[in-house]
């Protein structure tokens, strides 16, 4: 909100320099966005806080500055408010809504349309308001000066000299000053003229913008000056639902003092001569419920307890009375709040006023004295950190992406057929690019990897751990924690698999995990033949696979790409955090190798299973050390070589025992007609 330094100065004697004013405001009241010289004047852009409707005009901000500068509260100047009846049919104003807190107006007869005085135009110019004519400028100037919005109607355009302030019905329309038509929701405040139903029209969008039908123009002679106060919530609601606002609406929406209407109209009367003149023939003041000053009880030690600083009671009382409060009592203070301070309603509000004027920088930092207390542990968080650490150890870089996917992504990734229902939509999406809440992490991870692939020849290894969103069958939105990773590089799949094996080992759950390839369903991102479901017991906890060639093409990857995606909550539930040590074997192991020649499509997991089953409990280690095909191996075959270790917990195994186990394994492997043992 813009303020003229020169205009502020008319309210505060000995106002310090604009820079000093800025510094005082910043430390005691409001942020100042900018300070700029305009002609002889200086304009300050002050961020009036939303609850401070009382500072929406120069008078209000000057009052605040007086408090800060330790000047006594200015006395209200009493003006004469007189009307000379006659010449016009008296205007009849009726209110049918409780949202009109006060409706005051002046009717002026015989005004001549002309320009406003130069001094007024100069102020308006400083404040960035265009000068229009004497009457409009007068209302704008007084609003800037006092913070009370004013509106001028052409008296002769009001049918039957009759106005009704009421709430709108759904769908009613009003033609505004700027020739636009506003279609209204229910409950907006409007002004209707005319007595008979047949002639009634909406002539004003109350508190927001004047109506075209009642607008003053070059021929206007008789004027109604309205100074009303409407309920802040109603004005706020209207400007939100119409998505339209004016300076007046912004001021009303903060909430202003109903006691301010009469001073504003008095000011109209005072300045009228210079702006077109005329005679005040009627004064209207409908004030259904007079605003009475609020009283708040504050224990006198409360500021000290809240602020943690000693402020003498005398000083607190002085600050409050400069604000216009009346303070009584010593142990329990009774503070009467001036009507313009609608924001002060609790003892804590009083503490704030004392604290900020005393100066927060004068409060010495001091550590609290609290019992020594260990923080609670947060397992969910700690386990997430374990996962991150494990993948970092595996050479992966963590990425953090947007929580949204685009409209195009949804189509690209095959959400179009029926699956779109599972996507969570926003009422107000940011853009086509950030349209749905992300259903998984893979979509964004693929995009990120593709962008990186353009910059590097090295393998790409990335992962993300974050929240994903899905809609269950009906309407329920489910938020869950997912972990996804991607490898792009020559050996992508096995690097990815190695990484998750490392992850499972670090979480101490490796032996609970197996890879299910029996599924026949189509996967969204991965090849049908190159995908495994990651399982813990019978539970599906994720998926790993080679990315579909179509996606590799559309993202222009030059290498194979593999992804994994794991339910991080399920993973956390499986994680074993305690370590319980096993005895180190007391007797040495006997090491042997075995190699088996099998058809290409044989799963090594099946060979491993066969070896384990036939060897029995003495087999303590089984590790594949080579998978070979090519020279020396028949077409359509591969050679799988294993390291084996035999070990007993209670004796040293003899070479003979090991040999006999080797023979047993060989026999059982060769039961498969197309498997053969190689020595």
């Amino acid at each position, binding site marked *: 909100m813009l303020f003229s330094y020169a205009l502020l100065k008319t309210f505060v004697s000995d106002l310090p320099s604009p820079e000093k004013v800025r510094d005082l405001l910043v430390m005691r009241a409001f942020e100042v966005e900018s300070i700029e010289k305009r002609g002889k004047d200086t304009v300050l852009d002050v961020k009036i806080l939303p609850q401070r409707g009382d500072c929406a005009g120069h008078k209000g901000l000057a009052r605040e500055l007086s408090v800060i500068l330790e000047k006594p509260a200015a006395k209200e100047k009493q003006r004469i408010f007189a009307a000379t009846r006659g010449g016009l049919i008296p205007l009849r104003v009726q209110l049918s809504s409780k949202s009109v807190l006060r409706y005051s107006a002046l009717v002026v007869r015989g005004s001549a349309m002309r320009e406003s005085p130069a001094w007024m135009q100069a102020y308006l110019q400083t404040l960035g308001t265009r000068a229009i004519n004497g009457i409009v400028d007068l209302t704008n100037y007084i609003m800037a000066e006092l913070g009370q919005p004013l509106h001028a109607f052409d008296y002769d355009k009001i049918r039957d000299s009759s106005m009704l302030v009421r709430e709108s019905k759904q769908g009613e329309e009003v033609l505004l000053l700027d020739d636009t038509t506003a279609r209204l929701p229910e409950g907006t405040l409007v002004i209707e003229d005319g007595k008979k139903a047949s002639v009634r029209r909406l002539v004003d969008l109350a508190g927001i913008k004047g109506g075209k039908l009642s607008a003053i123009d070059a021929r206007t002679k008789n004027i109604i000056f309205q100074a009303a106060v409407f309920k802040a919530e109603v004005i706020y609601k209207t400007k939100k639902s119409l998505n339209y606002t004016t300076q007046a609406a912004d001021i009303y929406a903060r909430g202003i003092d109903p006691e301010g209407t009469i001073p504003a109209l008095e000011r109209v009367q005072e300045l009228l001569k210079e702006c077109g003149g005329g005679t005040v023939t009627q004064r209207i003041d409908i004030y259904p419920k007079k605003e009475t000053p609020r009283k708040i009880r504050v224990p006198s030690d409360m500021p000290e307890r809240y602020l943690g600083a000693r402020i003498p009671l005398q000083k607190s009382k002085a600050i409050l009375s400069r604000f216009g409060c009346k303070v009584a009592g010593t142990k329990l203070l009774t503070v009467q709040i001036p009507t313009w301070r609608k924001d002060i309603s609790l003892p804590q509000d009083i503490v704030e006023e004392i604290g900020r004027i005393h100066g927060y920088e004068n409060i010495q930092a001091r550590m609290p004295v*609290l019992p020594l207390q260990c923080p609670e542990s947060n397992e969910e968080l700690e386990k997430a950190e374990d996962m991150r650490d494990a993948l970092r150890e595996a050479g992966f870089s963590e990425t*953090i992406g947007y929580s949204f996917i685009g409209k195009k992504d949804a189509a690209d990734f095959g959400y179009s057929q029926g699956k779109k229902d599972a996507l969570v939509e926003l009422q107000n999406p940011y853009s086509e690019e950030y349209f749905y809440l992300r259903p998984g992490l893979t979509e964004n991870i693929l995009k990120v990897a593709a962008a990186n692939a353009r910059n590097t020849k090295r393998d790409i290894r990335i992962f993300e751990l974050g929240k994903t969103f899905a809609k269950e069958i009906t309407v329920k939105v489910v938020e869950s924690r997912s972990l996804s990773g991607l490898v792009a590089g020559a050996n992508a799949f096995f690097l990815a698999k190695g990484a998750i094996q490392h992850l499972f080992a670090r979480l101490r759950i490796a032996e609970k995990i197996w890879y299910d390839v029996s599924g026949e369903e189509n996967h969204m991102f991965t090849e049908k033949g190159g995908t495994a479901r990651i399982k813990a017991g019978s539970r599906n906890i994720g998926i790993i696979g080679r990315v579909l060639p179509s996606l590799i093409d559309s993202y222009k990857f030059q290498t194979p790409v593999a992804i994994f995606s794991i339910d991080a909550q399920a993973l956390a539930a499986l994680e074993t955090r305690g370590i319980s040590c096993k005895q180190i074997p007391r007797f040495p192991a006997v090491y042997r190798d075995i190699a088996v020649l099998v058809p290409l499509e044989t799963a090594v997991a099946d060979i491993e299973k066969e070896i384990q089953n036939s060897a029995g409990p003495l087999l303590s280690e089984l590790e594949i050390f080579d998978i070979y095909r090519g020279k020396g191996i028949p077409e359509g075959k591969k050679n799988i070589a294993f390291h084996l270790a035999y070990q007993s917990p209670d004796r040293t195994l003899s070479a003979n025992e090991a040999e006999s186990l080797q023979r047993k394994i060989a026999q059982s492997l060769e039961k498969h007609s197309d498997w053969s043992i190689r020595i």
Partner: protein
Amino acid sequence: MQRDFSELEQEAKNAIKTAQTPKELEAVLRLYTGKEGKITREIQAIPTLAVSERAEAGSALNTAKIQIAKAYAERQDELKQRAQKESGAEEFLDVTAPGKKIEYGSLHPLTLVQRVCGEIFGSMGFSIAQGPEIETEWYNFDALNIPADHPARDMWDTFWLKSEEAKSQRPKTKNPRFLLRTHTSPVQIRYLETHTPPVRIIAPGRVFRYEATDANHQINFYQLEGLVVDKDISVANFSAIIQEFFKRFFGFPVTVRLRPSYFPFTEPSFEVDMTCVVCKGKGCASCSHSGWLEIMGAGMVHPRVFNATGVDPAKWQGFAFGIGLDRLAMMKYKINDIRLLYEGDLRFLRQF
């Protein structure tokens, strides 16, 4: 009879020279100079000799023993070198050649910053709490004293979920519209609903704002909420705790400065400035030559927030604050554009 030990010495030397392994070599040495070795036995037999022969025999045997030990040491070196050669170790070790490359990954700067915050606040007794990213209007606004149709709502540009998603899901919820949380403050409500004061928590997490993006703004970003509720917690305590946090986080003595502000859920409310991290308070372009950087919002918990959570504001008081973690990360690691944090460029991420 004068005995000649040179033959025995030669025999031992030959055996040493022909030993092929360290093990064999050890055995040879034992055979001659071990406890029961041939030379040892001769030495033990010296007392049985005629007195006149003893001195000469002693000296000859001693020489033999020394010679054998020498031959042993030489052979030992030879075998070691041979073993080294066989194992492929080159004689020339090029110490300037690169070591074997270790493949390491990296954690996101926002993760690192959250960890540091967790540690610092943890050391001051703060627990870590979390809440959902999809919130109800009640937790995100109403319970925090931000009623509908109040201009304060304009302080948060909100993403709303589509209305059919907004059916009542949590029976407790008084206001069933769903949104993406605009701040981490709802965690205050959730925590106070389920815990009895005293309370000392931080709540880091992702938040959302419907606003134009640029080098300093994103539609999703991270915040860290703080909440302390006790019998006797003051603004002075807040300053001390947050000053200590910044001091440890940035590693130099930071001071904070509070200015008046407005948040519906705190009273009094502050804007918090800290010593500029670039110029350490001297004044520079980063802080518009003021020496201060605006870093966060804070305040004393509003009694209506206590009322909404069933905590008696007559008995308890405390402070709450919210810091932007992206901003902290950017300041700590000298990141000049917030978008780097969300774009996943490995040339950026691999630096962490």
